[in-house]
Structure formats: structure tokens, C-alpha cells
């Protein structure tokens, strides 16, 4: 059974979001986009658009929702973060460096020989990465295991798993969905980055996944939908979930997002799942992102 909060308490939580915090979260999303462009300029190929759709989600998770300790990537009480869509790791690395988990200079060698930072995150190489990924469909199972591990070890952390919407095609996601509902791992929060696109085109043209919220509800999860680019809305929802101490279900947040958010021609051209901005285009992209101030 889900214990919903009264409107009043939700409002009270919302009122805690100061304009300064909202501004900070938007600024951090801008930071993620600009750093993504900078790092991909080193590799000369990367997943810009996959990061841009979840830049605000990264920002809210790491700068408001998650319990973390600066410089202590292995603190056992920390909230965990796993990425089913590991190809967005380029947007996460600058945040992990910002948290003091490794030196910022490591970012400058992104994808170069011997550097720990690759297109997909590796927990053995990168401090702050809680679970390696790259093969789509494993992360929710890994997160479910961590949520069970918290129970076995009497720890109170939450586990956030960012999933791509194309990832909904993987059968293992639904194995994990069944198990998490069965074991009532309420400390497990899946966030589906519903940006609508995968490599070969529109998710709903390739193998349709709607009605997505109904599917998760039918699997026994609490489901919330949110504008994934509205930092205040995302932060308010994640705070509300933290406050639901009596919840007995895992949670699925369907974040409605735009692939390539922040750069107009990326938003409208699905071919940008993987690409590289050459010099002049890179300058224009940075100008456009700065002009929008992130996603605002």
C-alpha cells in the first residue's frame, strides 16, 4: 500500500525549494551540458542527446535528492545511483569530480589510452560509479540487489536507477520489476528517461512501450510522471518520495523529456543519438545552451 502525503505536506515540502536552490539546480544542469560538449570534443564522438535529456535529472539527484558525502565515494550510508543508459555517463563524470570523488584533471583525458573514463561507466575504474553498465537491461536488477542488500545489512540508503525508454524492450527489466514489487523494496526508485528515441528511431515506432505508466502500475509499482526538465518539479517529487517512510512499493518515475534538450537541431533530428560537433558547430551549440540557461 502506498502512503500518499496530503497536499498540505507536499506544499510544505515544495516551499522548501528556494529560488536560490532552483537556480543552482538549473546552473548545474547547464554545467552538465557544457562539460558534456567539452569532453566529447576530446573523444570526437559521443552521446550528447542522451545526456541532454537527463541533465536536469542528474542535477536534482546529485545536488538535492541523494545523500552523499563530499570526497567519500565509498561511504556505506550513501544513496546509490545506477544507469541502465550507461552511454550518458559522460554527463555524470563531471558531477562525480565535482563531488571530490576523483580529481577534475582526470576529465581532461576522457577516453584517452589508460584514462578511467570511457563511454560507459566502470565501477572498478571510476570512484563514485556505483555499478558498471553498458549492456542495457542489467541496472534495475543490480539496483534491486542493492536495495535487498540494504535490508540484509540494516542500512537505510535509497537506490536510484536511471533507465532509458528504449531499455523497456529488455526482458530483464521486467524480471527485476516483478522481483522488486514482490519484495517490496520501497528504497528502489527507477527513473525512466522518456525521451522517445533510441538508435534506430522513435521508440514507439520500433517496439511500442505505451501505456508505460499502466505497465509499471500493473507490475506493482507506485508510478509518478514528471516534466524531466523542470528541476523544481523533479526535486519536489524526489523529496516527496524521500518523505514517504511508510511506502511499501518501489517507485517508477516516468520523466517526460526531450532528447537533445537545449540544442534545437538535436531535438528535432534523431540521428544525433551518436555524433560529434565540429569546431564551428560546437561554438554555436555552447552559445545556444548558454542563451537558454540550461533547460529554462
Amino acid at each position, binding site marked *: 500500500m502506498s502512503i500518499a502525503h496530503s497536499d498540505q505536506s507536499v506544499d510544505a515540502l515544495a516551499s522548501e525549494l528556494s529560488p536560490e536552490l532552483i537556480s543552482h539546480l538549473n546552473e548545474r544542469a547547464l554545467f552538465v551540458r557544457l562539460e558534456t560538449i567539452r569532453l566529447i570534443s576530446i573523444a570526437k564522438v559521443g552521446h550528447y542527446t542522451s545526456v541532454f535529456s537527463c541533465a536536469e535529472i542528474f542535477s536534482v539527484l546529485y545536488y538535492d535528492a541523494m545523500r552523499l558525502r563530499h570526497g567519500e565515494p565509498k561511504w556505506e550510508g550513501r544513496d546509490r545511483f545506477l544507469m541502465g543508459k550507461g552511454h550518458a555517463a559522460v554527463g555524470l563524470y563531471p558531477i562525480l569530480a565535482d563531488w571530490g570523488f576523483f580529481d577534475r584533471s582526470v576529465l581532461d583525458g576522457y577516453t584517452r589510452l589508460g584514462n578511467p573514463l570511457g563511454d560507459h561507466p566502470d565501477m572498478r575504474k571510476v570512484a563514485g560509479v556505483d555499478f558498471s553498465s553498458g549492456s542495457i537491461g542489467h541496472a534495475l536488477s*543490480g539496483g534491486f540487489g542493492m536495495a535487498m542488500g540494504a535490508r540484509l545489512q540494516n542500512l537505510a540508503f535509497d537506490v536510484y536507477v536511471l533507465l532509458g525508454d528504449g531499455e523497456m524492450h529488455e526482458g530483464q527489466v521486467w*524480471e527485476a520489476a516483478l522481483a522488486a514489487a514482490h519484495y517490496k523494496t520501497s528504497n528502489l526508485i527507477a527513473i525512466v528517461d522518456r525521451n522517445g528515441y533510441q538508435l534506430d528511431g522513435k521508440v514507439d515506432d520500433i517496439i511500442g512501450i505505451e501505456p508505460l505508466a499502466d505497465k509499471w502500475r500493473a507490475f506493482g509499482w507506485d508510478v509518478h510522471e514528471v516534466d524531466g526538465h523542470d528541476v523544481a518539479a523533479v526535486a519536489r517529487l524526489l523529496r516527496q518520495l524521500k518523505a514517504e517512510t511508510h511506502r511499501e512499493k518501489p517507485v517508477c518515475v516516468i520523466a517526460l523529456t526531450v532528447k537533445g534538450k537545449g540544442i534545437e537541431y538535436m531535438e528535432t533530428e534523431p540521428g544525433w543519438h551518436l555524433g560529434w560537433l565540429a569546431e564551428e558547430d560546437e561554438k554555436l551549440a555552447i552559445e545556444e545552451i548558454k542563451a537558454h540557461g540550461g533547460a529554462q
Partner: protein
Amino acid sequence: MSAPVSPDTWQYRQINARAPGLSYLSNGLIDLVADGHKIAVGTADLQYSNGLSRFAEKHPELFIQFGISEQNMVSAAAGIATTGSMPFVATFASFLALLCCEQIRMDVAYSALPVRLIGHHAGISLGFYGTSHHATEDLAITRSIADLTVVAPADGPQLAAAIRASIHHPQPIYFRIGRGQEPNVYPDDMVFEFGKAIVHAQGHDLTLIATGSMVHPTLAAAQALRASGLSVGVIDMHTIKPLDREAVLTVARHTELLITVEEHNVLGGLGGAVAEVLADVGHGPRLVRHGIYDEYSLIAPPTHLYRHYRLDAEGIEAVAREALVQEDKQNVR
């Protein structure tokens, strides 16, 4: 309830009593808990087949039933391992090593997490259940996964000893075990050392290197060969990876013929591993790799299959005698 109509009548849930070797699995894990080790145990709808029902009754709070979701089980075990509990997850070797191959590589081995994967009913030990339930490729698959230790205990006591020893083994492990009907080779108090082959006997005419379920029939075959006046060595190569190269090289210096015996395809498993060692040094005795000769098994009860594929004591003895005859012919040439 009425009494069983015949002594052969039994229920699925009593299977544990009929597979004494598997009782060592649950008991070994129960002992770990008693010794204060933080472990978690899981299976995928096979708690009666592998006897983990015994563990589940004793420690329900440490037991996770994953249902028929093997891939979820393996990835979740990796997640559990990140939180400080050592997970032991078990299912048929076919489903573990073949269905979950990528989860094992990505989430367990590549991530270097201390997960213990227990593939039971390996080889052709599920008899007439057929190829879907046979695992004659699992050693080849798991052996090629970096940072994964691969162990095939010969019997229950060796399995229990290996489970005990695994507490201090930092790498992830794939345990390959049989169906629990293997006669005991070792006493209950045996001590297990990863990567250290057990030399049962040394011999200069031939040496048999066996692993897992094949150790017991190989020892019996060696006994029969000795009765003909042959000098026969036997090595239990329980750890397939890292392979005890020294044991292979040492025996290669003192024996004229090597025969590997495994309930596995002759490609890529124990035979392949020993062949690689001999090829690396570039000289040594002739090697005969005995096992399943790159084919899918027939349908039959397990003991009938072992006889058919010459994986019982008589079959192994016959394979050895044929190899010795060929050896003589070569020497004449």
C-alpha cells in the same frame, strides 16, 4: 496420506534426500552463517533440486527466492555484493553459464564482485531432460571470462570445503557441481586450496587428469589399469581456472601419456586448458582429451549416458587402453 505404493515412489520435494552430495551445499552455507559470515543465498525456482530449501528453512531472512528469473538473480547478486554481503546463487549450470553468460561477465566478473555462482547438475547429469538442461559448454565459457575463478568439486565434502575456503577468496567464483549422486572421494574434513591440484597417484605409463564428477570413476579406472601392471597417475584438477600449470608440467615430465577426463565438451574445458599448457612449453607427452566429443547428448537416464559416452570407470579404462595401444604403435613407427 496413504503410504507410498512402492519403495521407488517419491515426491519432488524429497529430492534432497536422494541427492546426498547436494546436502553439503546447504550445510556448508549454514556453517558459514554459524561462523558469523555475512552471506545471502538465492536460487531461481530450484530450491528442492539443489537442496537449498534446507538453508531457506533455517535462515529465511538470508534466503532470496528469485523465481524463474536467472538473469535478474545474477545481476542482483552483484548488487548485493556491493553492499557487504557475500551472495551464493544457484541454478542449473546450463541456465547459469549459458543463459546468464553476459550478466556473469559484466556484473560479476568485470565488476570483480565476490559473487559465488553455483551451477549444479552440470554436464549431462540431467540425463533424459535433454540438451536444454545439459551443460557441456560451461567450463569453456566461464574459463574465458577474465577474473572469474572456476572450480569443479568432485564430491560433497570437496564442495563444502571449497565453500568454506571461498570466504577468503576475493575473486568471483563459478562452482560447477553435479547432481549430488557422485560417491564421496574425500573425507568430510578435507581442506580445499584454490588452484592447487590434488595428486592422488603418480605413474609413468600414463596419468589421468580428471575434474568434478569424473574424479571418482577415473580413480576406479586407474585401479583397474594398475591390475594389469601399468603405472598410472591420477590428478584431481578441481580448479579449472586458474589452472595448476605446475602440476601439469611436473606430470608431463614423468609420464608418457596424459588423458584428461571431463563431463564436458572436449573443446575448451579441462582438456583445452591442459593442451594450452603443453603447447606453451612446446613439448611433452601425447595428450588424449576424453569427454563429450563436440556433440549433443542422446536422451537416456544419466548412468546409461555415462556408459554410452564412456564416462564411467569401465569406459575411462577402455579409453586409456586404446590410447596406450596407439601410443605403442607410434613408438614402433
